[in-house]
């Protein structure tokens, strides 16, 4: 028999209590991992951003537009090889809860600017030839069962009225993290109708997308663009695509902060669950610990017994937790795939979960260890259990 065996036998002394503690830990570790995965998925758009693209938008706010006439000036600027633009459409498909992102883009430059969207050549040709044509992401098509040639009507919110489109292309993502849920329409179709119905708002785009020859020059080029449009009708703010995406994510900042707080609270809960079990355990073993010391066992042996038991429970709880996480994440990923291009727990998340469990194992044993260290042998022996 080794001391390790005693630790192990100790940890299953109260079978039900140990099982409940482990299950509590496992569920909490799983919840912690899910929240982390969720936060990561939230930032996935920013992670997918290309380093060679800049976004130029109104310096006032993203909801303010820029004149379409800026394009020619941007084309002439140093370090910029391509310019495209887009606008947020914000239409509703039957019901607001069917939300998906809709962008009006410049058809001719769109694919060149976003090589991560893969569209079959004939479908792209069809998109170029028809004003009402749209290209949609594969996941979006799956979500609503849309096929090429299907008509789709959206109710405008920013641009009121009923808008009719025809699906002419379905794109797939080049990478796993490429968003496959976007609805891409032609800006010229949008602008034509606006020009007719609300002429005051025509010729305005939401933001420009600039492709750079050299991503290392991002800061310098951004500065040059914004300087160029300084004191013009609409001043600009240029930033990398990643920064741009982040600014959207930050709009949901309160939610993310809330989730982070919850994830830390969960760690606190795990700690309390295990600390409670360990405290009960240590209290029950006061006389046993005193007796072991009578035999000649030392304080560091007790230290090892208590810490070891705490770590075993934490470790098993963590292990079951990440096992649950690996199952549940798939279920969750299917349920929310329309909203998140990628939802999967990565190695770092699994590792963080285990590390958290490990630290909790140490933390939960601190007070019981202190108690066991402080008590004198003769006092411990007098405790009858």
């Amino acid at each position, binding site marked *: 028999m*080794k001391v390790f065996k005693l630790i192990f*036998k100790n940890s299953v*002394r109260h079978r039900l209590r140990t099982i409940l503690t482990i299950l509590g830990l496992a569920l909490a570790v799983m919840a912690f991992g899910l929240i982390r995965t969720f936060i990561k998925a939230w930032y996935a758009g920013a992670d997918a951003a290309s380093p060679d693209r800049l976004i130029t938008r109104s310096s006032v706010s993203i909801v303010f537009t820029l004149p379409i006439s800026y394009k020619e000036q941007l084309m002439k600027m140093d370090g910029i090889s391509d310019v495209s633009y887009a606008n947020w459409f914000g239409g509703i498909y039957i019901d607001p809860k069917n939300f998906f992102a809709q962008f009006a883009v410049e058809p001719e430059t769109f694919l060149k600017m976003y090589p991560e969207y893969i569209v079959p050549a004939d479908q792209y040709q069809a998109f170029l030839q028809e004003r009402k044509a749209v290209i949609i992401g594969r996941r979006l098509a799956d979500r609503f069962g849309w096929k090429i040639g299907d008509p789709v009507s959206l109710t405008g919110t920013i641009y009121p009225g009923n808008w009719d489109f025809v699906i002419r292309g379905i794109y797939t993502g080049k990478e796993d993290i490429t968003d496959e849920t976007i609805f891409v329409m032609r800006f010229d179709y949008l602008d034509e109708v606006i020009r007719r119905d609300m002429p005051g708002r025509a010729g305005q785009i939401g933001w420009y997308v600039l492709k750079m020859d050299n991503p290392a020059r991002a800061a310098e080029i951004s500065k040059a663009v914004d300087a160029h449009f300084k004191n013009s009708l609409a001043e600009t703010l240029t930033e990398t695509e990643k920064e741009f995406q982040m600014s959207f994510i930050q709009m949901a900042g309160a939610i993310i902060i809330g989730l982070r707080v919850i994830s830390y609270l969960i760690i606190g809960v795990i700690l309390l669950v295990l600390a409670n079990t360990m405290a009960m355990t240590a209290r029950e073993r006061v006389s*046993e610990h005193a007796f072991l010391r009578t035999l*000649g066992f*030392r304080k560091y042996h007790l230290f090892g017994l208590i810490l070891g038991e705490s770590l075993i429970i934490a470790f098993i709880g963590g292990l079951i937790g990440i096992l649950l996480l690996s199952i549940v994440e798939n279920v969750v990923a299917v349920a929310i795939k329309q909203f998140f291009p990628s939802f999967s727990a990565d190695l770092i998340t699994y590792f963080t979960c285990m590390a958290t469990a490990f630290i909790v194992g140490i933390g939960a044993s601190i007070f019981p260890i202190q108690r066991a260290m402080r008590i004198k042998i*003769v006092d411990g022996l007098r405790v009858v259990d």
Partner: protein
Amino acid sequence: MSDSMVNIFGLYKSYYRDSLEIPVLRNISLKIPEGEFLALMGPSGSGKTTLLNLLAGIDQPTSGTLSVAGEEISQLNENELAKWRSRHIGFIFQFYNLMPVLTAFENVELPLLLTKLTKKERKEHVETALSIVGLAERMKHYPRQLSGGQEQRVAIARAIVTDPSLILADEPTGDLDKHSAEEIMILLTRLNQEFKKTIVMVTHDPRAAEKAKIVRHLDKGELD
């Protein structure tokens, strides 16, 4: 080493409760030669357990000298005491103090984990100790599968497995029926006569005490 296993001189022990001194042992002087079997009797609260704990080196005297197994143990620090105890003392308690999660074999093996013995040597020692107490057949049993008398015999096996110089027993028959108590006393007597172990036993039971070679009485902290 002198031929005294225990040599106590002018021993005082007091406990303090909120700076109030509670004298428990007063001016105890006691010589116990090697091979002795001493029974310590006295009313409850007279300080018997306290004296035994002092002999075991798990408590410290307030004053006086206390030499056990050739060592002046009041001079040892905590670590030295722990080491000394594991070599020289075998302790037997009223309530056996077996680990419920360990088998009889593993309980007896426990003190040997502190030694440098190999697994094989440990096994031999444990088997010898268990056969001395007549429980070789019950090695794989857990304490809850044993009777009180058997549990106490496992505890005795555990106390002798390291071949200690001094066996201290605190009311070893206090929780047992008459028959089991008798068995335990026969065993202790054998340990004393056959294996020449020095034994100090606290007891309330006159029948147990008469098995000892000498009986001393403790009353209100003073030895008769």
